[in-house]
């Protein structure tokens, strides 16, 4: 069977091809930027609102794509491995070191001062996006760790919600008040497996999670004391039981607060709005407990997420300009709100503050007014930090909770296990 093309078809076809070829350089110049971010519809609406503003103001078209957190990382990794990485990538502090070390995202120092006008950008937020001294990500918002609190329970128990002076030692008394008021919930979730809480606790003691050169900044004895404290709370019924805590697999709807098992959980300041949407009772936020009334703060303002430029992006300067628009434009901030965190540019914050609703105001005030709770920004964690947290820390905390290990054992195991993971070659 022969495939026959008559002469006219051939001529038309080849003309069309040539024409397309002639036009494509024009198309290529007008090429759009690809933006990839995680989040849900709520965030997508805001993000697309900003990209629309940007295009209307004369920028190139933006092709946005968004995914759920769990799907985001496999897809980004696959696209990068396949040579198809996007131009602007939303990045998380957990992965930024890996991506930066592999040059899957590009350093942005050259753009500071030109495409990136970061004059009134918070210095600590800028630092947070640096890996090995080079800038790899622009913070999209600051947030801080915070306790997420169900105010209705505290009202019922007749005690004030946790505040700036609350210490860990105050928790048992709260548990008593709860019991007296007939509340079945525990006061607080089991925080023994929460890395941010552990870090905060360490910082109050003058230590930290990791040193600047990626080693552990604590001892086995610290870990043992941590696990013992929580074992104590568990035994006294101050925090939730092992079985209940194990229901928390990560998403907001599985946390002890939403499941009605505890009145207080460790969380982040920018999640207040999201939590309130799925909880009927009124929520508020407060700082993590102090270890003693006069302990220094362990908090710090950390970047909630970054925008980075793809390592293989064709036009890095255009990408930088888009990022600049996101973080420094006042109109953009009105669309974005504090959904990704508190804006890092002082001018933007001022413009935004009056327009926020009550809960967003609460979050903003909290982050802005940490006062003596605020400590220095820690160095960026080593690449293996995520693995130590997910694979070792949480498992050990569960083992202690279920009675499969003693706190002493767990403390030692955490120390040696973490060192093992850190020293293992990539």
């Amino acid at each position: 069977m022969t495939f026959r093309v008559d002469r006219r078809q051939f001529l038309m076809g080849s003309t069309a091809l040539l024409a397309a070829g002639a036009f494509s350089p024009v198309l290529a110049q007008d090429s759009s930027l690809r933006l990839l971010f995680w989040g849900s519809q709520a965030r997508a609406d805001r993000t697309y609102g900003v990209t629309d503003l940007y295009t209307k103001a004369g920028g190139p078209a933006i092709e946005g794509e968004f995914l759920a957190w769990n799907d985001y990382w496999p897809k980004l990794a696959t696209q990068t491995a396949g040579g198809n990485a996007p131009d602007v990538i939303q990045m998380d502090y957990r992965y930024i070191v890996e991506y930066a070390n592999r040059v899957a995202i590009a350093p942005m120092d050259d753009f500071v001062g030109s495409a990136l006008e970061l004059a009134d950008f918070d210095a600590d937020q800028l630092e947070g996006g640096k890996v090995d001294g080079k800038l790899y990500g622009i913070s999209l918002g600051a947030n801080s760790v915070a306790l997420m609190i169900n105010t209705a329970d505290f009202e019922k128990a007749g005690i004030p919600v946790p505040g700036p002076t609350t210490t860990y030692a105050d928790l048992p008394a709260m548990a008593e008040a709860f019991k007296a008021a007939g509340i079945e919930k525990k006061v607080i979730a089991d925080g023994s497996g929460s890395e941010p809480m552990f870090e905060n606790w360490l910082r109050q003691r003058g230590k930290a999670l990791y040193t600047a050169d990626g080693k552990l900044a604590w001892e086995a004895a610290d870990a043992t004391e941590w696990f013992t404290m929580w074992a104590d709370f568990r035994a006294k019924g101050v925090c939730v039981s092992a079985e209940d805590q194990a229901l928390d697999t990560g998403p907001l709807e599985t946390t002890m607060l939403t499941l009605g098992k505890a009145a207080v959980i460790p969380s982040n300041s920018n999640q207040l709005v999201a939590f309130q949407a799925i909880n009927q009772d009124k929520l508020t936020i407060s700082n993590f407990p102090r270890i003693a009334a006069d302990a220094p703060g362990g908090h710090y303002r950390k970047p909630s997420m970054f925008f980075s430029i793809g390592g293989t992006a064709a036009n890095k300067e255009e990408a930088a300009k888009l990022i600049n628009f996101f973080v420094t434009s006042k109109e953009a901030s009105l669309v974005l709100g504090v959904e990704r965190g508190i804006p890092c540019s002082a001018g933007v914050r001022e413009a935004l503050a009056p327009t926020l609703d009550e809960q967003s105001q609460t979050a903003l005030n909290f982050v802005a007014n940490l006062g003596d709770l605020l400590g220095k920004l820690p160095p960026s964690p080593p690449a293996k930090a995520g693995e130590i947290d997910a694979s070792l820390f949480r498992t050990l905390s569960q083992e202690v909770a279920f009675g499969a290990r003693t706190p002493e054992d767990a403390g030692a195991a955490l120390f040696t296990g973490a060192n093992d993971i850190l020293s293992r070659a990539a």
Partner: protein
Amino acid sequence: MTARSMSTSTVSSQRAVNNAWWSRAWTNNAPGYLFLLPWLIGFLGLTIGPIISSFYLSFTNFDLLTPPRWIGADNYIRMFTNDPKFVASIRVTLFFVVFSVPLKLAFALGVALLLNRGMRGLPLYRALFYLPSLLGASVAIAILWRQLFAGDGLVNQVLANFGIEGPSWISNPRYSLWTLIILSIWQFGSPMIIFLAGLRQIPQDMYEAASLDGASKSRMFWKITLPLLTPVVFFNAIIQTIEAFKSFTPAFIISGGTGNPINSTLFYTLYLFQEAFGYFRMGYASALAWFLLLLVAAFTAFSFLTSKYWVHYDE
């Protein structure tokens, strides 16, 4: 020389050509390969490349963001000597396979037999039993399972009526795997449908002839139904076992991808996924995958070899 002898010699030389090995091979094998052609193209073009790639990757360090780096058998050495999570995941997966597959098949066959009797409301029941399998990887399943099996879930509320105080099945390391086994069994719709199709292929006149001979229902089941169903039973057993070894989604959505509590739901492919996409160790994940392949292939080969003792084909 006569014309006939000339034509004979032409005929014999023709026959010689026809009997040449390559000509015979072509005539004998061409039909088979022609039917197989689409699959062959797919296999050689789309499948074999990535498979060989993944085998190569298992001997490398591949972090997805930079090109792979050859490290020899280090991945395999680490797997067998220095990886407690590997051992845990093998244990969890084997337990899951051993318990979920027979139970699931038993349910599927039992319900298929029940539904095959042509009772009233049959199409509705059939669709209802298939419904859970339709829900697939929905987030809703994770939420539902928690509602059923958490400490204050429905199951415990029912048990409380009998005075039994149940643990939090889904978040207790001792029982969490069982909730996943139950989830797998609950989605027995697929093997059930296949059993139904197999049952339907058994000719009715065999049953008629047998009942004319005075056979009881039970005898008919053991002597007619079951033997003629063995090809389908074999298929379901092999497929369900392979899928159970590769099971990923239930553990992923219910444990949130963590395999917790205390790695009690760390299925093998979940661990593989963590290594590949969570910790940027695609090379190690490839080694894990090939070990699984060997394990499953050994099991399947064994099944095929022993199948001649109990599977009846109509040939």
